[in-house]
């Protein structure tokens, strides 16, 4: 109830904003609903956009259980994508049943190493993970650009420097009956698995203790180092998986478009979900739906493309503010997910 109330409050503030511009909120929300959720095509549009966001958000949510604020998932996405693309080039003759899993594993491994390195720097050198992950994201994008325009460039890629295109057999298709690629299913499953890990296993329990109080965890002789390495690497692996799907399902090769900003959007989703992997699913879909509606809003109401950004800003502020109400009413369980 509370999140829905917050959503409506956000809509109300945004409606005021529109009224001040002389635009009709009713038209606006009708269009957003229609283009984001109103037709079968709208759902395909929304869910296709949500797929990478689910995985990118996990890259933030998992380390957050240990109290780590990792904001550089973008780096794992782009390098994971390059890894998948390059593995696909090397395995161009192999059967899909072999090549696709190898590409996926390559992407996940690179992502795991990249964000795992952030965890290692934190644990062994005391380097702040927020700044390290951000710096590494910029470095990863530079590396990706260097690789796809230099050593790994397919000379036949003229207008858009890319690795060699994946053969038709190595492309990931869509979920049967739906124009949405398999990345969505993997993303949802990943969120459920992450939820089980955190909520139902000893590892997850230990991580929650360590995230709450490192000293207490050490007194209980919990393996804090292993937890940090494991959770950061797992988060990175999921981001790498997002890179794999961008390459194998969307682009067909690794190129500069891999840096699409999903890693940064994922930060917002993870925090809105209060790092609860199950809550990531509806929030990623909501955000993707807003983005899916941007085009129709531009075309029909003559509003700038930034309008949807403003809407997101108001809605997310409202949702975050509503958290102050948690625990004030008996019906809501005490706050459990806070890491800050």
């Amino acid at each position: 109830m509370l999140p829905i109330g917050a959503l409506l409050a956000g809509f109300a503030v945004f409606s005021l904003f529109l009224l001040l511009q002389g635009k009709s909120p009713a038209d606006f929300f009708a269009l957003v609903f229609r283009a984001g959720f109103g037709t079968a095509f709208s759902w395909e549009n929304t869910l296709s956009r949500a797929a990478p966001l689910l995985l990118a958000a996990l890259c933030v949510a998992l380390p957050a259980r240990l109290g780590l604020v990792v904001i550089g998932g973008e780096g794992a996405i782009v390098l994971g994508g390059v890894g998948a693309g390059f593995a696909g080039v090397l395995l161009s003759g192999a059967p899909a049943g072999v090549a696709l899993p190898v590409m996926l594993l390559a992407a996940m491994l690179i992502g795991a190493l990249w964000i795992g390195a952030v965890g290692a720097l934190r644990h062994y050198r005391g380097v702040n993970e927020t700044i390290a992950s951000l710096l590494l994201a910029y470095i990863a994008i530079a590396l990706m650009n260097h690789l796809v325009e230099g050593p790994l460039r397919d000379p036949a890629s003229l207008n858009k420097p890319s690795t060699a295109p994946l053969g038709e057999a190595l492309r990931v298709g869509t979920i049967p009956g739906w124009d949405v690629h398999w990345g969505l299913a993997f993303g949802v499953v990943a969120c459920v698995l992450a939820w089980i890990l955190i909520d139902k296993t000893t590892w997850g329990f230990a991580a929650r203790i360590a995230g709450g109080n490192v000293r207490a965890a050490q007194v209980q002789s919990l393996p804090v180092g292993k937890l940090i390495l494991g959770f950061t690497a797992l988060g990175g692996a999921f981001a790498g998986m997002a890179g794999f799907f961008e390459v194998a399902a969307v682009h067909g090769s690794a190129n500069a478009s891999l840096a699409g900003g999903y890693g940064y959007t994922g930060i917002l989703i993870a925090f809105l979900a209060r790092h609860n992997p199950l809550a990531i699913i509806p929030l990623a879909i909501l955000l993707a739906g807003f983005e899916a509606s941007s085009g129709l809003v531009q075309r029909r109401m003559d509003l700038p493309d930034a309008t949807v950004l403003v809407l997101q800003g108001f809605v997310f502020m409202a949702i975050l503010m509503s958290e102050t109400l948690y625990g004030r009413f008996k019906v809501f369980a005490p706050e459990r997910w806070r890491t800050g």
Partner: protein
Amino acid sequence: METDLGYWIIPLAIIGGAIRVSTPFLFVSLGEALTERSGRINLGLEGTLVFGAMSGYALAYLTGSPWLGVLAAALCGALFGLVHGVICSLPKVNDIAVGIAMMILGMGLAFYFGKPFVQPVAPDLPAIGFGWWSEIPQVRAALEVNVLFLIGAALAVLLWWMLRATRVGLTLRVVGDSTDAARAMGLRPAVIRTCATAVGGAFAGVGGAYLSLYYPGSWNEGISSGQGLMAVALVIFARWNPLACFGAALLFGGAGALGPVLQSVGVSEGYYLFFAAPYVLTLGVLIATSSPTRAMTGAPGELSITK
């Protein structure tokens, strides 16, 4: 008539780049240092920076005075900071998350209202030529120093002194280190943090005005390439010390000049890697100066990001 300086243009470009590019980093990181010293983190300064760039440019264009633009950017920035500060004063609201949402809101509003100001040309902020002693045009160009850079440098020293030696600075540090201790002293942590966030926002707004009103000196949606976000990270790098923020901003700006200048002297392969120099260098320094035993010395005790 330009002179051929050979490889001497590399150090010259680094100095020139440090002066030209560092100012937004400097203002945002000084503002954020102040905010974080009070125990809050405002990750939304990227949005404030972009809105400052837009509002500064718009006002400068409409009034013809770049300084009114800077003032407008500072006021808008303060307003954004105030909103962040007030919302985060509510119990159980996560300051990092609110920051990210404010970043989206700030950018959204800036792009929304900024459309009509992309085409017009607004007046630039003035610069002072410190290269008068040299006959070499490149030296003169490198030493064109914008007034805001000088103000930023002075502010760094002032804030450093303020935090160390004044009552205001001490109050801020107490609030940042322990909410309970501050309450025991009769201070109101939420009010002080909100003020610190508002001032921090004003600084970030001025940093944005520098981007649109001096260098690169125009308003468009791609004006910031993440300077605001990076500057927030630089505060941790600078260990919350305003003087170190100044150093970090200079390092970052100077290293950013490497990519173009190396190409201009013929080192042209792998330019993406040279463009990454500021990030690699910062990470290297960070790893070298960190230590697992004395992690985060100087970190305010109440800061969520380093707890």
